[in-house]
């Protein structure tokens, strides 16, 4: 019994190393900026989806206001740099902490709501944060947006080529997955799952359901804000419609649901499927058929929900688990 699980562990570790190696090395061979941009977007969106998954996947508290935390990250690091000269390397952590604080306050108010009522509350908060970012002109410049100066150096966290961005985004992407993995295999992850599956039963077993969700919310918001900061540094221009619009939240939800809710790899897989499709359509069809990518998004979502209700990774994992269980000799 034990050698089998040990074997599986070493095999999993080997696969993980190979995948990491491919991810680290492959950008070096891509000379085309267009494809490097694709890598960056996959990593950033994968990281953002992974952050969202911590509260919405593991704890089942579906949030539609993660655009707010993304925006907090983007604006905090950008404004700290432009107005106070603080390097974005530090500014992004300030944004992360601010987003965590806002997330915890939101949690304290809204966590008593259940399922779709919670979703509605977050929907409102997400929409309000977009409106605030549009109208708080003294801080955000409103719809005009804020441009970062393009002076490539390390302190500014702006670079001439795309490769540094690829690796920064890759690092964040891997870090978010590592955090998810650690959560899944820790007390916190077990407690979040217990809450998601049945709150009363969890409480009867001594799970402090309120507190564990606040912790998960703080982590989730922190990581979402860091992603926002990196996004701002990459595109060097932010405005409410690019970092605060509600669709960002819907998009990460979509990626994660298709990839696999409450799994480590699900959000990454979702991003790896949708981002290339988006890029491909944008490049080849341009604006010839406006909204076509939304139709395709919808189609994929419907097909996945019909045939793989736990998401691509979630369903595959279950099937593999079942095959393994039947082939395992009875002890």
């Amino acid at each position, binding site marked *: 019994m034990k050698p089998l699980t040990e074997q599986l562990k070493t095999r999993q570790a080997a696969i993980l190393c190979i995948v990491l190696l491919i991810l680290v090395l492959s950008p070096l061979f891509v000379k085309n900026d267009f494809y490097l941009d694709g890598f960056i977007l996959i990593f950033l969106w994968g990281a953002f989806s992974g952050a969202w998954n911590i509260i919405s996947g593991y704890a089942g508290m579906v949030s539609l206001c993660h655009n707010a935390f993304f925006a907090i990250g983007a604006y905090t690091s950008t404004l700290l740099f432009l107005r106070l000269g603080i390097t974005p390397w530090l500014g992004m952590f300030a944004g992360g902490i601010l987003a965590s604080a806002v997330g915890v306050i939101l949690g304290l108010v809204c966590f008593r709501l259940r399922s779709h009522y919670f979703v509605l509350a977050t929907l409102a908060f997400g929409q309000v944060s977009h409106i605030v970012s549009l109208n708080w002109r003294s801080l955000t410049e409103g719809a005009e947006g804020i441009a970062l100066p393009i002076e490539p150096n390390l302190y500014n966290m702006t670079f001439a080529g795309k490769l540094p961005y690829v690796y920064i985004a890759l690092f964040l992407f891997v870090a978010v997955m590592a955090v998810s993995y650690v959560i899944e295999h820790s*007390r916190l992850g077990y407690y979040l*799952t217990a809450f998601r*599956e049945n709150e009363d039963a*969890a*409480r*009867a*077993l001594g799970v402090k359901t309120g507190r564990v969700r606040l912790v998960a919310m703080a982590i989730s918001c922190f990581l979402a804000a860091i992603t926002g900061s990196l996004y701002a540094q990459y595109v060097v221009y932010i405005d409410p419609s690019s970092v605060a619009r509600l669709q960002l939240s819907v998009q990460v939800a979509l990626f994660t649901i298709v990839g696999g809710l409450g799994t480590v790899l699900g959000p990454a897989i979702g991003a790896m499927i949708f981002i290339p499709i988006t890029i491909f359509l944008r490049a080849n069809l341009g604006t010839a058929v406006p909204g076509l990518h939304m139709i395709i998004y919808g189609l994929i979502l419907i097909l996945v929900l019909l045939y793989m209700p736990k998401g691509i990774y979630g369903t595959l994992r279950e099937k593999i688990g079942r095959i393994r269980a039947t082939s395992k000799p009875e002890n």
Partner: protein
Amino acid sequence: MLAVRNISKFFGGNPVLQDITFNIDKGEVVGLIGPNGSGKTTLFNVITGFYRSKTGHTKFNDRDITQMTPEAICKLGVCRTFQITKPFSNIPVLKNVTIGALIREKSLRKAEKRAEEVLEFVGMQGKKDVLGKNLTIADRKRLEIARGLATSPKLFLLDEVMAGLTPIELQGMMDLLRNLADKGMTLFVIEHIMTAIMNLSHRIIVLDHGEIIAQGEPEEISCDPNCIKAYLGEDYLNAQDQ
């Protein structure tokens, strides 16, 4: 061990529990019976903190637990099972039980080991990889018990763990509960199956319309006129007298 004093509970003005007072001593097995809707489960909910009583108080080992949350009460050593079983559906049995064990164990590995021991004790070691939702009724009830036991309760409240079982499963459950009692665990058991509860309990409390109408050893209870009235109606008593 447990002291309940003057507990009352109302649902929208309707009294569900009225002025409930009783004690449970360490090592006792106390049965709680009563017709449907008499407030048995509500009483469990009040003791374990899921409902708050407006009056009176509950003490566990001389600590007032009336205003505590269910999770804090569980930490003190009072755990309950649910009549309508609430397994964590999408995760395996072992993980279900491990979550219970985590409250006492520092590391996940130790909690898992404790969970394995508990599963062996309740006779479910062969099903540790089965998802919660794929269990039979009997196994769900066992899982409820296993999860609760994993929290190492001092007082264990069991809500109809024998309902819906086949005679053989019932015998297994009886043995399990007797095993727990022999180990010195204090049990407070709601049950409708009279042979089971009469056999198991040292003492029985009878609820009807939210009030305690009788209390005593099983033999006394089975011929208490108030109980017979509650269960079989006044006509039955009159018929017997004639």
